[in-house]
């Protein structure tokens, strides 16, 4: 049997098995989920033949499944992150109900993503896209928080995106007579400008919704923060990348080939604006989940910018960041989940000082945050560097400044995240908090190790990125294991950086620990220099509320402008319109009869213009 079909069947079967397993009994269900989480990636890495294709004709549409290297790159994200998140979920969701639905939807969204990445035609792409959408919708509203608002918002935006894509698909089908992606790419140059723009931009719209580009991002904060965190790490880490995947081939394979780089350029600008505004929003969140949600949007903004610019280095940066973002955002959402589970809240105004209670969680969070902030020597820096260099090489100086503003401001929320949850004074009400269970810690640690390794050897990611880029038309992508080079020949050797940092760090670690650490006593966080004031243990002296008030004052004019509100007003306006429109059904039977007669009269009067006589 074809290995691709088998893969789909394995995931679907896994979903059903987990569903029924959990219907029967929790332990059986968890064992099933664990087994499925192991089998899927093992099968993918060892058995799947990436050269294989399978095609069939359904309802007159020719459909074909088969990997290309570009899809394989994204599949790797899915296949590594999702099983880890599944394993994490076993610990995280232990006390939840309706687990059968949870794992069923979870695995179906994996199925959707897997399918998208191996689709070679639009019909199967769309089918899997929609499967992914509804399964993730079920997870967004899973906890029952804010169902009507967040859930509907997510679904509406997803639907708008998906339907834009569907519209593009049928127009493409009309113009090419084929549903194959390759036929579309091949005949794109022959289209009229109007068709080019119409199909391309509609496709872009569809993908942009999932990657939360600025005016279409409003679903993301709520959806990311209301979903069970075990899934959010996949949601933000892998599912949003499906949008990036699509944007990549539309911008590069279509518009750049057809000398319409302007579209990519506009997209890049939207990405940059997204990055800046989302970062500003993230800085002022006091719920760690919301903070990460906005941060995800901002990070996706970088990636979109990288893809949009469309040079070799920038696409490499975008794809590399996509991989890295999956890793560090995966960890961070898991961290928040662990905190939520152990401490009961993720409100950074309330919780504080958990670092002493949850050291492993804190360690992984620290690694992930350093990667997210793009600080050397961890892997995040590599992506940032390539992005900046590609922008500078292209002389997109305004965009550089915007990205830079965004990533500098990102330090603010990065620190706030760590400080809010893990540092500050340790309060008595959180004394009971314990470290999360190993099932949750191990996936986080594994991903952190990946982040540490990419700091010195980003080449392990470059290898797959470069492979993937062959499908975008960049054949001899120049990459080295640990030396980054830009278009002007300037380079950074990250291995040297790593070396320098480690050597100095270790040297001074010995220096400072020697005859110091052992003799000093570890004291409580309540024991601080307070200029003579006595601090009682129950006094919470942590400075958390309005952490960046001064910055907020500076940004007042920008923050006033809330796009969400416009959408909500628009929605309310529409609802009022609908309410008005349905008043034509007055409830009076006679009125309906009058409608009929009026309609008849109108038709008779205008029969000449309708029927010609």
């Amino acid at each position, binding site marked *: 049997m074809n290995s691709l079909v088998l893969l789909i069947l394995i995931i679907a079967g896994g979903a059903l098995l987990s569903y029924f397993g959990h219907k029967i009994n929790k332990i059986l269900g968890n064992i099933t989920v664990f087994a499925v989480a192991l089998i899927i990636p093992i099968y993918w890495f060892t058995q799947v033949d990436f050269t294989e294709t399978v095609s069939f004709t359904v309802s007159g549409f020719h459909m074909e499944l088969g990997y290309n290297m570009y899809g394989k790159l994204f599949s790797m994200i899915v296949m590594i992150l999702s099983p880890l998140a599944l394993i994490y979920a076993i610990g995280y969701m232990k006390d939840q109900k309706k687990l059968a639905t949870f794992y069923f939807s979870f695995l179906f969204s994996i199925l959707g993503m897997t399918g998208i990445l191996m689709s070679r035609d639009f019909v199967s792409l769309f089918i899997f896209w929609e499967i992914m959408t509804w399964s993730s919708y079920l997870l967004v509203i899973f906890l029952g928080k804010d169902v009507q608002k967040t859930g509907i918002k997510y679904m509406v935006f997803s639907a708008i995106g998906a339907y834009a894509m569907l519209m593009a698909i049928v127009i493409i089908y009309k113009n090419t007579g084929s549903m194959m992606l390759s036929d579309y790419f091949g005949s794109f140059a022959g289209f009229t400008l109007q068709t080019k723009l119409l199909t391309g931009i509609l496709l872009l719209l569809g993908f942009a919704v999932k990657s939360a580009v600025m005016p279409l991002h409003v679903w993301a904060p709520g959806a990311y923060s209301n979903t069970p965190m075990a899934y959010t790490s996949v949601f933000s880490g892998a599912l949003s990348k499906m949008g990036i995947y699509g944007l990549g081939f539309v911008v590069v394979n279509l518009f750049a080939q057809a000398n319409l780089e302007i579209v990519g350029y506009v997209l890049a600008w939207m990405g940059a604006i997204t990055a800046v505004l989302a970062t500003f929003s993230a800085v002022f969140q006091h719920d760690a989940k919301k903070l990460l949600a906005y941060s995800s949007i901002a990070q996706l903004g970088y990636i979109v910018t990288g893809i949009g610019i469309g040079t070799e280095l920038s696409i490499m940066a975008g794809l590399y960041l996509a991989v890295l973002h999956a890793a560090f955002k995966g960890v961070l959402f898991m961290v928040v989940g662990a905190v939520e589970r152990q401490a009961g809240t993720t409100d950074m105004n309330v919780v504080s000082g958990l670092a002493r209670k949850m050291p492993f969680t804190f360690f992984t969070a620290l690694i992930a945050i350093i990667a997210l902030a793009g*600080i050397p020597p961890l892997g995040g820096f590599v992506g*940032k560097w390539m992005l900046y260099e590609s922008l500078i090489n292209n002389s997109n100086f305004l965009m550089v400044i915007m990205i830079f503003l965004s990533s500098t401001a990102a330090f603010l929320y990065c620190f706030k995240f760590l400080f809010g949850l893990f*540092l*500050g004074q340790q309060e008595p009400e959180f004394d009971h908090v314990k470290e999360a269970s190993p099932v949750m810690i191990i996936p986080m640690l594994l991903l952190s190790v990946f982040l540490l390794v990419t700091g010195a050897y980003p080449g392990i990611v470059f290898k797959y990125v470069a492979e993937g880029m062959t499908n975008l038309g960049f054949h001899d992508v120049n990459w080295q294991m640990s030396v980054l080079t830009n278009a002007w020949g300037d*380079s950074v050797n990250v291995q040297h950086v790593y070396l320098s*940092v480690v050597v*100095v760090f270790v040297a001074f670690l010995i220096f400072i620990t020697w005859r110091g650490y052992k003799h000093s006593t570890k*004291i409580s966080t309540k024991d601080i220099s307070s200029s003579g004031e006595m601090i009682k243990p129950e006094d919470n002296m942590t400075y958390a509320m309005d*952490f960046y008030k001064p*910055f907020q004052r500076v940004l007042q004019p920008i923050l006033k402008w809330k796009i969400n509100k416009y959408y909500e007003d628009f929605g309310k306006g529409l609802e009022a319109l609908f309410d008005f429109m349905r008043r034509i059904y007055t409830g009076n039977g006679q009125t309906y009869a009058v409608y009929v007669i009026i309609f008849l009269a109108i038709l008779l009067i205008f029969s000449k213009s309708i029927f010609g006589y």
Partner: protein
Amino acid sequence: MEGIGYKILGAVLTTILAFVVGMFYGGFSRKIIARIQNRVGPPVWQNFLDVLKLLFKKTSVRYGLMHHFAPLWMITMSITTLMFVPVLNDGLFFSNLNFSGDIIFLLYIMVFGSLGMALGAGSTGNPNSAIGVSRGLTQMVGFEIPWVMALVALMIQYKTTSVTGLMEVQSQSGTWLMFSSPFAFIAALLAMPGMFRYSPFDIVGAPAELASGPISEFGGKYLSTMMTSGSIFAFVKLTLYVDLFMGGASNLIVLVLKTFTLYMYPVLWGAVSARFRTEQSVRYFWGWPTFFGFIALIYAAF
């Protein structure tokens, strides 16, 4: 090529040089400010004494691993940055690793230490530290913008992103970049006091009301390491400015002269100005300095 031992020796020597020069600059600044304020002031080697005294004091308390690591992060950052900044023009002896990094890298590595210190400060549970950190990071967002604009302008104008590349440009044309790209220089110069956190941008430490802010819970070896790191970092920043805008230096004496001249600018400005509130300083940085940064960018791009 020289052996690895030679490299290590160079690195150690560079570090010692940076430490000594930075310490003396600190001493001089204290002395100068004191004279301006009509005080006698401490001797110029006072900083050495402080560091040594602290070094031999017994560290008695710690708040946990993050607290322990914070000074390490700072010094790691300072020295690593130093390794990647060319100290002298021909750069045979003090070259260290400066061909392995470029300006974007330097911008980022410079933040590394601040984050480390911020985390260390946060882990103490002292509200003053947290307040200081929050102010410091906010202010950083302020001054980074004109500073980055200036650097991006240089990079775009001369089509190179490495410090050595820019230095080569200067040595070939014989003109310092502060004259050939004046707007970038102005923007960078206006952003500079923020980087040094001298008055009017000293609200981060604010010794009077925040008990020195982030470092208020550090003592003994920790504080001595932090001070060392601060001196080295001051030297690194000055050297970077000199490398970028003033043609670098061909020998140590020229280097000291140039850096000291440059150093006097934030010190003297600080001596005569009152403190800005955080949002005021951010607004200041996003005002004129950013405006000059823009002009520099436009100048560079067209």
